């Protein structure tokens, strides 16, 4: 063997190289003892009261029994598919199967907690369990790309997305803020959101957009300019109706609205969270208003907030309902100028009114017994199904630095 030839590395790679692999089954089968913020019962309120309830309502209100058979769901589900499980259970009475498509990149170190590190494919058995039970469709698929990659022209993520139909629900459940740009990437979560809106444009049925995001007054990316701009444009064009609603929402005075608004954007507070919600809603309204023939209404269905990094609430869970208008056919006589309806003043007013009723679920889950116990039970059930060690979870919750909680198991 001593005279064996030296083989170039790239040749060896082409034949033998393997991707970094998931840990052995023996390790994966053990009960999991590392927890992340989304294992806190407060997140269960979002999953069940916001995502599951609204989705159920969407199917009942605006889908025929035949269309209720499959829910086309865009998600960033994480390895345990917690959101999918909750939706599947809520939709079971309708006989709905979930056809999800989404991304779950191997987590980077910048991700909060890093609890999932090293377990990129724990979802295989979760996925099989749901599929074999008929709760998800056979073509439900999670890719290992990053969500942000869909904003890169020609990327595999964009390629795969473009081969998918429209989604009934898009759930961007971010750990970070919308302006976040992952390591080694150029595009932000917000850019990905814009791509998804484009993907949905030809869809003519109402659909839901869930956005969970860090909302930190100190971490505002360039996208906030778009949100702020959307508000300002409304103030300028429809101030008469919009300004009182906005002032009421953020507890400002009409006379000092402009400076109150500026102040709201700069300090972490409920006001900031509300103005952020209105800004994002207005941005969406503008986006859909701008699609002359494919316009849509945007309703803010609910706003939840809770603290995650600080004691002040800094997470927002927003649920938008997008209601496409009937196709707007332009008359031939329109010539080069198409007929465009005026900017959506009423919608803006409704947005502000809804944002005003923002619900702090961090507090609610402590104060409302029913809510707390259902959130705890729900989480427990989920974690148990996903093979977590419940007594370790109990300890983790009891010692939680910002949101400690005592639970029975």
């Amino acid at each position, binding site marked *: 063997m001593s005279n064996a030839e030296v083989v170039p590395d790239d040749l060896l790679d082409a034949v033998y190289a393997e991707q970094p692999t998931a840990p*052995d089954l023996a390790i994966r089968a053990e009960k999991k003892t590392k927890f992340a913020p989304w294992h806190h019962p407060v997140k269960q309120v979002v999953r069940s009261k916001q995502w599951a309830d609204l989705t159920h309502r969407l199917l009942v209100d605006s889908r025929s029994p035949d269309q209720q058979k499959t829910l086309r769901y865009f998600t960033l589900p994480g390895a345990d598919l917690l959101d999918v499980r909750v939706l599947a259970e809520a939709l079971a009475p309708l006989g709905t199967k979930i056809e999800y498509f989404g991304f779950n990149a*191997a987590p980077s170190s910048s991700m909060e907690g890093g609890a999932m590190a090293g377990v990129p494919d724990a979802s295989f058995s979760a996925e099989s369990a749901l599929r*074999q039970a008929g709760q998800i469709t056979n073509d439900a698929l999670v890719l290992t790309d990053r969500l942000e990659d869909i904003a890169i022209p020609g990327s595999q*993520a964009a390629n795969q997305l473009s081969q998918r139909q429209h989604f009934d629900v898009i759930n961007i459940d971010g750990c970070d803020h919308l302006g976040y740009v992952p390591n080694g990437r150029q595009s932000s979560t917000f850019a990905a959101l814009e791509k998804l809106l484009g993907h949905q444009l030809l869809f003519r049925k109402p659909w839901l957009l869930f956005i969970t995001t860090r909302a930190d007054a100190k971490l505002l990316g360039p996208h906030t300019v778009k949100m702020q701009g959307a508000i300002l444009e409304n103030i300028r064009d429809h101030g008469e109706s919009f300004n009182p609603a906005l002032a009421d929402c953020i507890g400002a005075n009409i006379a000092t609205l402009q400076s109150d608004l500026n102040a709201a954007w700069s300090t972490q507070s409920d006001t900031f969270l509300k103005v952020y919600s209105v800004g994002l809603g207005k941005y969406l309204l503008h986006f859909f208003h701008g699609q002359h023939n494919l316009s849509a209404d945007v309703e803010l269905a609910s706003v939840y907030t809770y603290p995650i990094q600080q004691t002040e609430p800094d997470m927002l869970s927003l649920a938008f309902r997008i209601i496409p208008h009937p196709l707007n056919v332009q008359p031939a006589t329109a010539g080069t100028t198409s007929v465009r309806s005026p900017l959506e003043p009423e919608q803006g007013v409704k947005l502000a009114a809804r944002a005003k009723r923002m619900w702090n679920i961090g507090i609610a889950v402590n104060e409302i017994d029913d809510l707390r116990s259902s959130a705890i039970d729900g989480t427990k059930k989920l974690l148990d199904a996903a093979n977590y060690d419940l007594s370790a979870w109990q300890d983790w919750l009891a010692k939680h630095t910002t949101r400690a909680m005592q639970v029975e198991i």
Partner: protein
Amino acid sequence: MANAVEQIDDQGKLATWLSNPANEGRVVRTYLKTSDRVIARVTDGIYRQPSSALRELISNAWDADAKNVTILTDAPRFSRIYIRDDGVGMSHDVLARLLHNIGGSAKRHQHGRELGVTSDWDLEKSPGGRPLIGKIGIGLFSVSQLARRFQVITKVAGSNHRLVAEVKLRAYSEDGDYNEEIEAGDDSYVSGIVSITPQYTDDLDAHGTDIILDDVKPRVRDLLRSADRWRDVDETEAALDAGEIDSGASKRVEAPIFHSGWIAMMPRQGEPAVLDRPAHFPWSNEDPPEARMGKLMDGVESLSSSKKERPDLASTLDSYLEMIWQLGLSAPVEYVDAHPFDLKQSGDLRLFWLSNESRGRSIELPFASGQTVRAAVKEHSPGKIELKEGLDPVGGFKVNIDGTELRRPIRFKFYRTERSGIEQAMLFVGKYAPNLAKIPAENRGGKLSFESYLFWTGRVIPKENNGVLIRIRGASGALFDQTFFKYQVSEQTRLRQIISELFIQSGMDAALNIDRESFNYAHPHVQIMTLWLHGAIRQLTNRHKEESAKLRNAARREQAGQTTSKVLDRAELIWRQHRTNENVPDIIITKDEEEAGKAREQGFIALNRSSIPTLSSSLSADTTVREAQAAALTTILSAFGLLEDRSYEEQQQIVEAILSVFYEQ
């Protein structure tokens, strides 16, 4: 951190361990083994291409009475492959057995009955009544050709647990490098190691099997993504841009026309993957899964008026689409349009019943408008035969790959070859179940019976659909055999116009080699089948000759008064010397490509004048002469078969090259 994992290598004990609820969440290890040294090598691979492994997995789902199989690949990256079915799943007994008996299938044995993998009333059938494809017990481990490691997650209905198994295979070696490792403590050979964990659930009804390849071998990924071909194309284009070669040379390496895209540099972990060439599928995103295979066929067929008389798959599709095509051919799924026995008479088909006598003659069956082949055969065939092929007892078997529903890509379309040739396609149908009772049982090779058709049309598109395909119990590993099992008579043109399938209902699978892709020619079933097939071809060609002779005489009478040029007469004479009873082709010279395309659809051989400078540049007085010469030349070239399977462009280049010798520009 992990507790020491128990190793159990006794099949019975393993099954018991797996079924014990106390072992929830624990992991057991076992060797993947076989008592046969030859079979141990199977896990190293016996197949020619990656698609063979998928074919085996699809067959397994069929055998497990699945109604739906879904394969997901994330083409063109192929980082993972999932195979999911809704079949009966594997119990702990089945799993324990198969891991320790590679090469020893329980199917079609009494043992299979006890395990529930074989029907109670017919050993040859699945529990749901489908003819079983599996028999040898090596198909599942063909996955080893795609990945060294894979997971199986499976559950049977009524059970309170799901089994999650992770298989790690080792490359076979005869070096004796690691003899210790392969000691299994008994006389077995070890092919790998398997970890299994039971997961408990209260959902008793759930069932099905998931096979997950999360680490496809790099070389396999390269094969699937046509890497060698794309690299060639990239290099050629670069050289062309740099002026290092001229465009003539670049024709040798052509990019596939339809493909799933190309990522030249696979990104490292954590980097975004970007396509250097976006996918170009023959379907659009709005096309539903069941329409896509038809679109794929449309795409290939459409090239026959613009590119080549008989477009071929190899140059038209990338490996991925070719794989989809081949899986569609081999899987027990529906046809793109209709099963040949369910074709309806719509005026362009004649139906014949094949005789099983040696030197027999086919008889034409009345075939009423709107009637199906099946119905016509039942009403009019001697013996009022009821054809069975094409009916599934379980009620449908659908296989979906990345949003495309597999269908057999075979169409029964009529194409003209000659302007004044036969006006209808011809379908020959037969059934054969020879009584072998006279032969001693030990020589017989078992029972044999099959149904079959031979379809004649002017041209078979694509080229790869020409020949005979042997389908055993609905599945086929071999592709179309263009030699028709070495049919000897020189019927080159007619043979190229036949699509045939033999649907074997019993017998023949002992004659299949273990890769299921080739036959053992010495097996008596292969010999009987071959003789029958050759007899059927003879019946077809005889019938075809008679029909064309009638037409030829009629055409001659019609043309009697016409004067043609001398060169053309000469060319026809040469044609007849070489192609005794075939009609002289009709050659037409058109003014542009579009006209040429139309003429080709009507059965002309068309030359586009503007692509042949010697014709387009000549003075008007000369034109007629030169065009007659070009037509004569084309007739002669095709009499010798020299134009066959060349692109239209090339055919024109050849004509131009020869003419240019005589006419200086």
